[in-house]
């Protein structure tokens, strides 16, 4: 359109349009070939990620992202949840915060009100989740008593869980107390359920009732006392397994899959005691003592001996009752012998032998009644699959309760998977860090590349255009810089920086320092090429013409030389963007950390914990780094092809 073209010739507005048109042409040039297309698509993806991240990032996250409390509610080192679609089986993670009660039960006669917050959780795999806890912020309710005083009421928190097997257990009930002052309706400090407050005894009792875990009478015999011993031992066995393998709280998600009780039929200890009895008997028989005592002692010891022999011979048919009865009999007889020995004034060595026998038998009885040595229960648990309903009730003793309350009830079930990309150590959400790492990486890369290339272009132009001493100086500087091994210097300065800076801005300063060093070492290569280009451009006739017309050096540089090297500079700039990103990541991996959530930091954590075996931890950050680099490499290739059409091959 002619009018359009006319307006584009003058005015500040037309310049912008001209510039935009230039950009559009360049973009369509880049878009024409495959690498350019790929690069532009990736670039748009990265930039949109960066924009989303930059607009939602908080300073708090930047500072606290590595603290364990920040990710408290996340499971530690678990894969992303989409692995379930690939055939892996992991339990779900639930992190629910409820503010409105699901239902309210008011009993105004008794003055009891119960606000219940419910959540449904489905366990569909064979392993229980990794952890469960409930966090409650309950409000203080106020009631005016008839005499006009205001009393403040705090609730009892009762957590009950309805399980798929029909069992309803109440593992926690925690009375909340008011410490200090609080206004009416204000929320109390957070109360968190722990395994210390978990009522494991109640859960075990429920299991034993529900799953009919009685010990067969063939094993226990009929003595009520002994049966209660056996029960206690069984409970202990369950407690040990549940506390150890299931971290107490996971008892919620399991059921006793297998239960059996056996009696230890090994007779070695019994035989041992028996032979001791026999030896004692022989020794005392050989002694020269009053026959009355001798006979009594021998009778008792024979009785003990026979008791033991009977048990040893019938061990395969014996019950726990038989076992203990025998032992008590033996114990009684030997104690009897002890009395007689004292009265018969037996030598001390024999009396001490009797004492040792008694203590041995006593210890054995203790073992038999308190440990799993003789009565041996085997319980194994298994994850109980199905729908759970977790009810968190706040129970207030109040006559005139409000219809509803606002509280904050958090139900945290740490499953075997989390989010889009899983978690790292301390429960760090990998997706979040990847997302927020994007703007940091891109800005580090861009700023460094732009500055280095800018300095390089101008140093090169100045060097080539003016020549002489300036040229020599710049070239020698480039030479020296180019010969210094870059990475060791970077590591030295990086380690220095960690001690040098303090305060909340430390990370920023360290990263700025990295960028500064990259710039110092990065401009040299550009300067050499631009100098060579300038040398040839300088000899062109139109430069001479411009000079003849009286153009200043500055005008010649900016108007005639700079535009010529601009396209080359753009290509180099684009190629240079990944440098800073790779260097930052590399230094982080080495353990020289700055403290910000970057892709390199995630890999650094994986290295520090030597968890190269966790694929969801080491792959995504590396892929992001590579993808970003690839974007700029491809973009650079595309731009290079526009600058240098000979290179068109791909």
């Amino acid at each position, binding site marked *: 359109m002619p009018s359009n073209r006319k307006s584009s010739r003058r005015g500040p507005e037309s310049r912008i349009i001209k510039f935009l048109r230039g950009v559009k042409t360049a973009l369509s040039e880049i878009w024409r070939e495959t*690498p350019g297309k790929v690069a532009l698509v990736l670039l748009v993806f990265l930039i949109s990620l960066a924009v989303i991240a930059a607009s939602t990032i908080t300073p708090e996250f930047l500072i606290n992202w590595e603290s364990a409390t920040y990710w408290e509610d996340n499971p530690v080192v678990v894969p992303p949840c989409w692995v379930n679609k690939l055939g892996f089986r992991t339990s779900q993670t639930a992190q629910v915060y409820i503010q409105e009660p699901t239902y309210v039960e008011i009993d105004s006669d008794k003055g009891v009100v119960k606000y219940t917050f419910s959540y449904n959780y489905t366990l569909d795999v064979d392993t229980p989740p990794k952890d469960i806890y409930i966090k409650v912020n309950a409000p203080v309710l106020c009631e005016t008593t008839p005499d006009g005083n205001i009393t403040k009421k705090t609730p009892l928190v009762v957590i009950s869980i309805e399980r798929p097997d029909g069992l309803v257990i109440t593992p926690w009930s925690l009375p909340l107390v008011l410490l200090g002052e609080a206004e009416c309706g204000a929320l109390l400090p957070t109360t968190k359920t722990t395994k210390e407050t978990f009522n494991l005894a109640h859960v075990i009792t429920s299991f034993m009732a529900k799953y009919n875990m009685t010990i067969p009478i063939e094993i226990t015999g009929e003595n009520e006392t002994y049966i209660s011993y056996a029960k206690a031992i069984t409970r202990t066995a369950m407690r040990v397994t549940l506390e150890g393998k299931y971290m107490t709280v996971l008892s919620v998600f399991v059921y006793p899959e297998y239960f059996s009780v056996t009696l230890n039929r090994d007779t070695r200890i019994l035989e041992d005691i028996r032979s001791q009895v026999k030896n004692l008997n022989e020794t005392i028989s050989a002694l020269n003592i009053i026959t009355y005592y001798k006979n009594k002692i021998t009778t008792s010891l024979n009785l003990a001996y026979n008791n033991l022999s009977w048990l040893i011979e019938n061990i395969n048919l014996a019950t726990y009752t038989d076992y203990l009865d025998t032992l008590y009999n033996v114990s009684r007889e030997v104690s009897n012998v002890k009395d007689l020995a004292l009265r018969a004034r037996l030598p001390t060595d024999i009396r001490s032998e009797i004492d040792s026998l008694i203590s041995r038998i006593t210890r054995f009885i203790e073992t038999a009644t308190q440990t799993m040595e003789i009565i041996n229960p085997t319980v194994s648990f298994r994850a109980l699959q199905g729908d759970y309903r977790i009810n968190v009730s706040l129970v207030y003793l109040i006559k005139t309760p409000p219809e509803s309350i606002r509280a904050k009830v958090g139900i945290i079930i740490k499953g075997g998977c989390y989010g889009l990309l899983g978690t790292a150590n301390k429960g760090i959400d990998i997706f979040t860090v990847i997302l927020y790492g994007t703007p940091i990486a891109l800005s580090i890369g861009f700023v460094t590349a732009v500055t280095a290339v800018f300095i390089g272009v101008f140093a090169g132009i100045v060097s080539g255009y003016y020549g002489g001493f300036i040229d020599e100086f710049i070239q*020698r500087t480039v*030479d*020296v810089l180019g*010969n*210094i*091994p870059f*990475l*060791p*210097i970077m*590591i*030295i*300065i990086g*380690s*220095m920086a960690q*001690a040098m800076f303090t305060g909340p801005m430390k990370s920023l300063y360290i990263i700025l320092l990295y960028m500064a060093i990259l710039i110092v070492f990065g401009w040299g290569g550009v300067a050499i090429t631009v100098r060579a280009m300038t040398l040839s451009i300088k000899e062109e006739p139109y430069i001479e013409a411009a000079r003849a017309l009286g153009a200043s050096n500055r005008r010649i540089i900016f108007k005639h030389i700079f535009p010529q090297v601009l396209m080359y500079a753009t290509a180099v700039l684009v190629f240079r963007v*990944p440098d800073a990103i*790779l260097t930052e*990541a*590399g230094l982080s*991996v*080495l353990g020289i950390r700055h403290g910000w959530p970057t892709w390199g930091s995630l*890999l650094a954590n*994986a*290295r520090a914990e*030597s968890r*190269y*075996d966790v*694929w969801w931890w*080491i*792959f995504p950050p*590396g892929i992001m*780094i*590579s*993808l*970003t*680099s*690839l974007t700029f*490499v*491809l973009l650079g*290739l595309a731009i290079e092809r526009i600058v240098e059409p*000979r*290179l068109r*091959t*791909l």
Partner: protein
Amino acid sequence: MPRAEVVILRRAVTLAISYVIIVIVVSAIIEGSGYSMRIYEAMVREAVNAELMALRRGGNVSEAFIEQYKQNLTRYYMYIYGLTDEQGNIIPPYVRMWNLVWRALRFDFGKTGSYSVANLVPTVPPVDILYVIATILPRTIAVVTVGEIIAALIAVKLGPRIAYKHGSLSDKFVVAYAAAMNAVPLWWLAMIFIYIFCYQLRIFPRSMRGVAPAFLYFWKDPLGNFISILYHITLPLVVFLIYIIGPWLYGFRAMLLRIIREDFVIAAKARGLPEEIITKKYILRPSIAPVLTSIILALAGSLGGFIITESIFDWPGMGTLYYSAILDGDAVTIMALFVVYVLVYLIARFILEVLYIIVDPRVRVR
């Protein structure tokens, strides 16, 4: 127009001057900035505190005695770590810096007292720094230099053909592969390979630190040690090769592409010469200068090792040595490494300058 000798001499002088400047710059960074001093001070504090704690645990001694003991001990350790002279005066950073420069220029590196540096040999300090470098250098040569040589040979073999078939599928593949390898960090590639081969398939060891004795006592049991080296080296070498083969092929291709459009190549094609002769005689030979340059500089540069990647593999080579020395603030070892590396590099460059003049008459007239 200066004669060839004058050109060479001038280059030699320039390189020597840049060597001196580099030594000064590096000294300024290590010592002038107080970096190594700060680390030594921390070490002195640690050593003194350890002894004081032992003293306190020993029994009841008066606080005054402890204070006196602490001062003496600090003075002693300051001297041992080279922070003070015999009179107990603190040596300021700039003096330390020029001392370091002077030692570096005389190649007088002496012994290192750093445990983590000596550990790499493995031995205990004090140990001669040049001995440490001489012991550790073969380990880096075995991976990096050997890798570069293999890659260069492959590139010399395949590069001309790819350049000749410029635009073909294999050419496109090389460009894409090089672009991809440019984008992927080598150390991340190393992590991935460790994940696959050391953790999933469990073929190779998870840490390559165990290769050190096989190098150190190689001649005691050459066959067994060779197998041990092979077991440890395969993964690093393969990863390194996979990584550098792309840039090598791409670089060769770019160099040779300039030649391919020359008239004499087109003429050779027109004469119907077989592909092999064209690639060997008409393409590779005229580009011998840049090819030689890239090979020699790559070999010279390979001696520095790869700090990050070596640390991922836990490979006890030059990169790991660099890193241990830096973490320990071992200024003399760091300096010795820089000197060895820069010197080899500068000498390589000088040799190239001479070679250019001999090989290429056009350069001679410059």
